[in-house]
Every structure is written in structure tokens, then in C-alpha cells.
């Protein structure tokens, strides 16, 4: 079942059943304010046809856009302590979690799935920014470890797709230690000789950007994505001067040598598939590995 048939269509049906023209069939582009009809938006992979702005998408939409034919298998993720610090600010953390869960229909801010990208075996770990700002706590850290182990077990490439404001503050130090834990995860993939790519999407900041998200063998970014360590406001308060134009955008990072390429959403499967194929030494005729070079026979020496 695709995201479209499972989620969008029933919702639209429910809405169209009423007398009013439903508002949420139309989305306003956050960049140019153009009104975008949902079906068109869907067809354009949630890229504004007027200005090219890449709207944020959910983890599930990511998986559907990247895996061949939108087909993938979701990987079960380990359970973690829900609220280790019994954290409460203006609201209880457990309440915020429940809200995020019921709004998104997901358990946490990340989904892990395996499938094929242009015929290449791949595991994707994709973030849901709408789930508490895609923040990284114990569940996300554990998910990345699971994603890495799945990639190793399946002899597949790992693609991390962060969309995150950083650490999940409500888990305190238990969120900070996810930085080294996610680095351990990708080191496992690295040591297995498998490719690890990062697709930086809007936004990727804080403890997420300063751990697994900057350590890809190849760093890809979506156009216009905000990527950085410190938040703009924090920097502005520190330096007390105008920030350069385009500061912390994907293009700015590319120009400063921090990412390999900025790739429009529609070209991602092709780009990722090709890179996996090149790194894994496959011939361009098919997706099967090159014939192994025979080992020298003993009498050859």
C-alpha cells in the first residue's frame, strides 16, 4: 500500500464528502506563496512548479520517492525507554510524544527500510521533521544502529536522510550520547566495505549535523536545504552582524566544500543508484557484479 492510497486518498475522500471545498487540497509554497494543488504537488515530488522550492516531505514519502516502484520493506526498530528523565517543560515530554505520534501516525522521528534504488540494494534511514522537529533521542540513535546492521547483514548501501533540528532536548544527555552512537553505526558500515551516503535535507542542524550526517562517503544535499551546526539566531547573537546571503544553504555548503553536490529531488534515485553502482564496481551492462578476476594459479610464479 502506498502512502497515497493509504493516507492521502482516504483523507481527501473524507473531506470531499462534505459540502465545503477542502482547504488542504491546496498548499501554499513557503518560498513564493504560489498556491499548489495537492495532485500537482504530488506529481512534482513536492517541489514547487513555480519556483523550484523543495517542500519538506515525510519519511514515508522519502522512501516512496527513492525506492524502485515505491516498493520497500520497513525494518522493525528497537523499543527504548519512553521518557527516561521524566522531562517536563511547559508540557510533559510524554504528552508531546503522544501528540507527535498521533499526528504523524509514526512511532518516532525516523523510519528505516530496505529495498532497491535503480536496482541497487539499499537501506534508507529517513527522518520525519514533523515529528518533534526530527530530533534525535534514544529511539533515533537506536534506529541508526539498526539501519547500519541491516545494511551490513543485507550487503547493502546505507543512505541516511536527516531532517532534524538536532538533539532531543527532552532526553538530556541521553540524546547527546547518540552522536557517538550514530558514528559507531556508520563505522560498522564503513568497515564492512559498504557505501554510506548522506542526503542532507531541510533542515539538518545541531547534533545531527555534527555526527553521522557529515560523515558520508558522499554528501548530497537537496536544493535550498538549511544545513549547519549552530542556529542562525545563535550566530547572529554572537557575531552581531549581517549573515552572508545564502548562509547555511545547500548551495553555500557546496561552494564552501562541505557537500559533494546539490541534487534536485527528481534526480535523486538516478544519482544515488549510479553512485552505488560505481563504488561497488559494477559493469554498466547490468547490475551484476563484475566477474571476479581468477586467483593466480600456484604454478604461475
Amino acid at each position, binding site marked *: 500500500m502506498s502512502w497515497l492510497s493509504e493516507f492521502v486518498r482516504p483523507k481527501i475522500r473524507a473531506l470531499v464528502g462534505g459540502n465545503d471545498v477542502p482547504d488542504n487540497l491546496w498548499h501554499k509554497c513557503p518560498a513564493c506563496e504560489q498556491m499548489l494543488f495537492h495532485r500537482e504537488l504530488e506529481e512534482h515530488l513536492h517541489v514547487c512548479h513555480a519556483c523550484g522550492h523543495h517542500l519538506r516531505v515525510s519519511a514515508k514519502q522519502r522512501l516512496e520517492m527513492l525506492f524502485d516502484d515505491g516498493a520497500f520493506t520497513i525494518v522493525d526498530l528497537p*523499543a*527504548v*525507554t519512553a521518557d*527516561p*528523565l521524566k*522531562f*517536563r*517543560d*511547559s508540557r510533559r515530554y510524554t504528552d508531546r510524544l503522544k501528540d507527535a505520534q498521533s499526528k504523524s501516525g509514526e512511532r518516532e522521528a525516523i523510519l528505516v527500510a530496505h529495498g532497491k534504488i535503480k536496482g541497487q540494494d539499499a537501506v534508507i534511514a529517513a527522518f520525519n521533521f514533523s515529528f518533534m522537529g526530527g530530533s534525535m533521542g*534514544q529511539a533515533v540513535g*537506536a534506529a541508526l*544502529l539498526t539501519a547500519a546492521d541491516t545494511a551490513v547483514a543485507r550487503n547493502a548501501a546505507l543512505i541516511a536522510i536527516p531532517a532534524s533540528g538536532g*538533539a532531543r*532536548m*527532552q*532526553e*538530556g*544527555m*541521553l*540524546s*547527546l*550520547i547518540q*552522536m*557517538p*552512537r550514530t*558514528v*559507531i553505526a556508520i*563505522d560498522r558500515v564503513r568497515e564492512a566495505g559498504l557505501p554510506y551516503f548522506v542526503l542532507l535535507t531541510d533542515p539538518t542542524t*545541531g*547534533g545531527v*549535523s*555534527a*555526527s*553521522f*550526517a*557529515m*560523515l558520508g562517503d558522499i554528501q548530497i544535499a537537496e536544493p535550498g536545504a538549511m*544545513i*549547519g*551546526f*549552530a*542556529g542562525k539566531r*545563535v*550566530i547572529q547573537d*554572537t*557575531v552581531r552582524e549581517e*549573515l*552572508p546571503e545564502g*548562509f*547555511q544553504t545547500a548551495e*553555500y555548503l557546496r561552494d*564552501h*566544500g*562541505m557537500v559533494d553536490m546539490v541534487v534536485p529531488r527528481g534526480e535523486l534515485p538516478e544519482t544515488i543508484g549510479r553512485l552505488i553502482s560505481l563504488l561497488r564496481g559494477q559493469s554498466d551492462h547490468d547490475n551484476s557484479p563484475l566477474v571476479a578476476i581468477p586467483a593466480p594459479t600456484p604454478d604461475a610464479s
Partner: protein
Amino acid sequence: MPHFLDFEKPIADLEGKIEELRHLSDGEINIADEVGKLEGKVERQLRQTYGRLTAWQKVQVARHPGRPKCGDYVSTLIDEFVPLAGDRLYSEDAALVAGLGRFRGRPVAVLGHEKGNDTESRIAHNFGMARPEGYRKAQRVMDLANRFDLPLLSFVDTSGAYPGVGAEERGQSEAIARSIQSCLSLTVPFVSVIIGEGGSGGAIAIATANKIFMLEHAVYSVISPEGCASILWRDGARAQEAAEALKITAQDLMGLKLIDGIIEEPLGGAQRDPGVTIQAVGEQIGDALDTFAGMDGDALKNHRREKFAALGTAGLI
């Protein structure tokens, strides 16, 4: 003139009285009795106050200007210290000190954030807030430690990595991430001590160690209480509540099994007796290094990895 924190006012008043008595005494009146009484009161007051510091009070103690800094530990505990400068790519970063020396006779590599002890040195060290160059220098020194089999010691004391335009342009995120990766690749014993403030990613970049200790009144947090308050409470002034909620004290983190031990501070905090504090830290480092004697490189690396892979997962679910 010692620096007193807000909550130390009663102590400051008592010590002020003692000073005054000593100053007024012309030798004819015997003030010893009175001074002795007041000193007793000071001690009781210190015991009371420091025995139950709130998380926010600990933040203030951890940031105390008179607290021993990285350089004080290095100059006392490390003989023949040779500082190393530069990342070989862009610049030197004095916020993150690196070098080689001897700890109890044995060659070691050292990393630490230096906050500075006075206005001039604070500015020179950028208040202990490192830029990418600092973290890349750290990676260089970790590589040296690996190749020449030198145990690594780190002294952590930073409010966080520097949030600036240049730092971002030169890849603050990548530098921190790569520094964590370097920590995890070490095949030598790595002992880290949070001596003051352990500020987020900028701290863990040089604290992903085999053994992590905290001074009794040090703090270690994913975000500053002020920053957390302004985001979650939308009011930076509610930092006290945020400090409690974030569980940032050595005692809290020991309870969560995220650190390996707490190093006791002198009565009234490290700032009251830097010498004793530094010696206690030295003892702890010595003991920790002893526990790794005879372990080979891969075992040390695996120990660190498995420790972090397991952190937070045991006994909490």
C-alpha cells in the same frame, strides 16, 4: 578578592567579617577566639550550601572564574609538556589545547578546552569555544597518539563549540563529527575528565572516552540551560528549571550510568583549593590508566565502542 556566587552571600559576609577583624586587630586585642568561631560558622555554612547545591547552582560553580582550568591541570599533572599548534589546514585555535607530555613518567597525549583565567587570556582562548580548527587539531593529535601508542587524556571545559560565520563555513559540524570518529578509532587508553562545563557537541567531540569522570560540581549537558529555557519555555530566564529538568549534574549522570565516576571537590568547590582538586583528578586518571594496563589496541577500541553502543540501554527499558 575572591569571587563569590550569588548564593554564597552568607559565606561572603562571614568571610568579610573575618577579614575586617584581622584588619582592625592591632595586636592588643586577642581576636583568635572570635576568628575561630567565625571560621567554624563559615565551614558549617559551606557544608550546608555545597552539600545540596541545585543544578543551577552547580552550573554557576562549574563556570566559576576561579575554578582551575585546563592549563592549571596540565601544568601540574603533565611534566615536560609540549603544546602542539595548528590543524595544518587553516589556523591555530587556542580554545582547544593539545600537546604531548609525561603523566607520572609515562608519555601521553593531551587535549583540553581552555577558558582562560583573566580577561586577556579568556579572549586569547576565545572563552574555551573551539572552532573547526580546534577539532581538526584534536584529530591530528589523536592520530599521533594512535601511531605512537600514547594514552590520551582530555580535560573538558567548554560552554560549546563557537557559533560563528567562519566556523560554519569551515565545517564546524564536520569537524566535530570527525573528531568523535577519531575518538572512537583510538587504539590507546582514553580518559576524559569534565572539569567544569561539558557543553554539548563541542564537549563530546573530545570526550568519547574509555573512562569519563566528572568533578563533583561539574555539569555536562546537551544544551545550555539558558538555551533550553529559551526554546522549550520560550523564556531564557527560566534556566533554573531547565537545569533541573535536563539532569546535568555529575550525580544525575552517574545515576543514568553515563559517566564512570565522580571526583570529589574540596569543601566549597574546586575554586577554594585548586591544588587539592588537581591532585584528586590526577589520582583518578592514574587509577583509570592502571585498569587498562596490558589491554591491546583492538580491545581498547572495542571497549570504547561497546561502552557507547550500550550507553543508555541498560536498566532503563
